[in-house]
């Protein structure tokens, strides 16, 4: 298929339509505005639903309603807007409703700034809301990967009856890159939604109820254990990552995702030219964290250098996996500063000097 | 005086709230304080069934759908 040049936000919007998204509910916020803007025109044109909600809180609750009726639903926002959605996301997870949430991340905390950031890693991987729940969280690197993940996410959400969050930094949202929107992707087979409250109680012969309330703690615990089993299944089956330059016996291996991984690729190239081989683990799914990636590293590896556009959030996941295996190091920029690959090159050299001593 | 109808009381659903008692225009309802139902409440009883005019007031006001009202028909 021909590639078309599209802005990240618009490409995600179009990918959602191609992924079968029935309805979108959202509220404007920079740097994701082109998502609702694009959909305000194209959803209607495709006989789907677009509603600009009065707030992020309303938007996520509209998502709850539409998802409960069995629709494939999308919302998108950026960091503070995602914070406002936390109660709603917890409800979605609690009621086991499929939904897709896009977070085009900007610098925080608070109002912060609007430049590209990865400062919401905790918010998206730990669930900012109440209770024991987990999301499937993706953090793609290029527009092509983003588009494929957005398309596939609807079937994933349906399969697990769980919200899927796709976190890109503002850079991915704002940049243009050629993408093929019709690349074949392997959809997750979604079971029929016989649980949905579609208004067909009579026809169905039983009422469907969408509920996250369980007043009896033993019943609620059972529900939690059921959810946990699902999360464990995700952990088993959905870890997704890329290993880069591992066949050159690197001693240092980056761990980086999203735009940071692209920048790290440049650093790897630059270092290669200087005869230094560095590898990279690139989580594509950041939750469940791709622990499996760490099991197959070459013997040569001594150090994992976590790279973030935040101040050590993913580092914690690396620490959890690591359990003392490798030396851990960290490089991060914050607040919307996009690092240059040269800074990473520098960091690597500093580490190597330290190791040589 | 012949009753125009009668009420059927699903005793175990009654919460003994007394709302119906106050609404009966012919004052034939009261709570039966001699017993408690499954829920532990003193349930509704009819004191003088013959006087029932089948107005449905008691049933209308009952929050817990305890009461069914039947009208007698002469055919």
């Amino acid at each position, binding site marked *: 298929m021909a590639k078309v040049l599209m802005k990240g936000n618009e490409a995600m919007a179009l990918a959602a339509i191609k992924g079968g998204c029935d309805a979108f509910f959202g509220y404007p916020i920079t740097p994701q505005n082109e998502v609702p803007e694009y959909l305000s025109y194209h959803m209607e044109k495709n006989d789907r639903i677009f509603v600009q909600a*009065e707030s992020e809180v309303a938007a996520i609750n509209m998502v709850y309603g539409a998802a409960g009726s069995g629709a494939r*639903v999308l919302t998108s926002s950026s960091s503070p807007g995602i914070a406002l959605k936390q109660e709603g996301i917890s409800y979605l997870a609690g009621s086991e409703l499929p939904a897709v949430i896009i977070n085009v991340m900007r610098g925080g905390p608070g109002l912060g700034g609007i430049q590209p950031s990865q400062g919401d890693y905790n918010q998206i991987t730990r669930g900012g809301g109440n209770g024991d729940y987990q999301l499937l969280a993706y953090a793609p690197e290029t527009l092509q990967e983003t588009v494929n993940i957005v398309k596939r996410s609807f079937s994933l959400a349906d399969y697990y009856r769980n919200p899927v969050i796709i976190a890109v930094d503002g850079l991915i949202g704002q940049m243009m890159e050629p993408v093929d929107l019709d690349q074949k992707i392997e959809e997750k087979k979604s079971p029929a939604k016989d649980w949905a409250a579609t208004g067909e109680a009579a026809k169905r012969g039983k009422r469907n109820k969408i509920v996250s309330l369980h007043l009896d703690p033993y019943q609620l615990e059972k529900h939690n254990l059921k959810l946990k089993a699902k999360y464990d299944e995700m952990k088993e089956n959905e870890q997704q990552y890329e290993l880069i330059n591992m066949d050159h016996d690197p001693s240092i291996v980056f761990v980086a995702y999203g735009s940071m991984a692209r920048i790290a690729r440049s650093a790897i190239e630059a270092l290669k030219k200087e005869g230094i081989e560095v590898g990279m683990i690139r989580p594509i799914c950041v939750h469940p964290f791709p622990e499996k990636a760490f099991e197959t590293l070459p013997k040569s590896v001594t150090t994992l250098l976590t790279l973030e556009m935040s101040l050590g959030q993913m580092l914690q996941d690396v620490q959890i996996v690591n359990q003392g295996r490798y030396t851990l190091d960290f490089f991060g920029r914050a607040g919307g500063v996009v690092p240059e690959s040269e800074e990473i090159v520098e960091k690597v050299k500093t580490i190597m000097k330290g190791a040589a001593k | 005086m012949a009753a125009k109808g009668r009420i059927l009381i699903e005793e175990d659903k009654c919460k003994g709230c007394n709302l119906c008692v106050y609404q009966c225009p012919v004052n034939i309802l009261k709570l039966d304080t001699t017993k408690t139902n499954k829920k532990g409440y003193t349930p509704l009883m009819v004191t003088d069934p013959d006087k029932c005019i089948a107005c449905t007031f008691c049933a209308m006001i*009952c929050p817990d759908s305890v009461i069914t009202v*039947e009208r007698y028909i002469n055919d």
Partner: protein
Amino acid sequence: MKTKTIYKPTSGLTERDLTYCPGCTHGIIHKLAGEVMAERNLIEEAIGVASVGCSVMSYEFFNCDMQQAAHGRAPAVATGIKRVKPEHTVFTYQGDGDLASIGLAEIVHAAHRGENITVIFVNNAIYGMTGGQMAPTTLIDQKTSTSPLGRKKEGAGEPLRMCELLATVPGATYLERVSVHDPKHIRKAKKALEKAFDVQTKKQGFSMIEFISTCPVNWGINPNDSLQWAVDNLIPYYPLGVYKDGTKDDQS
């Protein structure tokens, strides 16, 4: 003698015992909504939205598909449902804390967008579920667990009237305030609900019926006196009647 059943439990409600306290008028309002939907055959295709309040379990009572919404957000949830299921009857059942306090933006904006849904609004001037705290609808000098000396105008303000407020929103089609303190008013209330659901069926837009309701337990007044208290205190501040009828402009 032969008999004809002239009043019986509605098939619009399930057989589960209601969880409301004895004499709480939530139950009467449930019955009316169930009756209206059953009589119009809406119950077979309706999708209801339970809110957070004493009626949180109403998803167990209404005999149709139900969703349970986060506190205050029922109108947003209903919006999501109605948009993807426009041919189905969609209603919310909300208390005054839910609708007039935390959920104020959601109810106003659902009305604003003219969402074609029906809102059943139960105003008992208090937070029942959580143990009797002050609501935006609590009367001046009314004692609650967070206004132990009675609500004061200074600091807490005078109670909000939701029908009056929503009447200023162009998108609202039908708004009426009713009471269920005696059979006559119950009948009127049912008529109001019928009108509200008919507005929806005819795709005429947003309708809301506000019910003056009681909370014997948290008011600390027995059920019958509670009805009287509502008549003496609530209805004067919250006058009954139609606050907006946008169907009248309608020639169809």
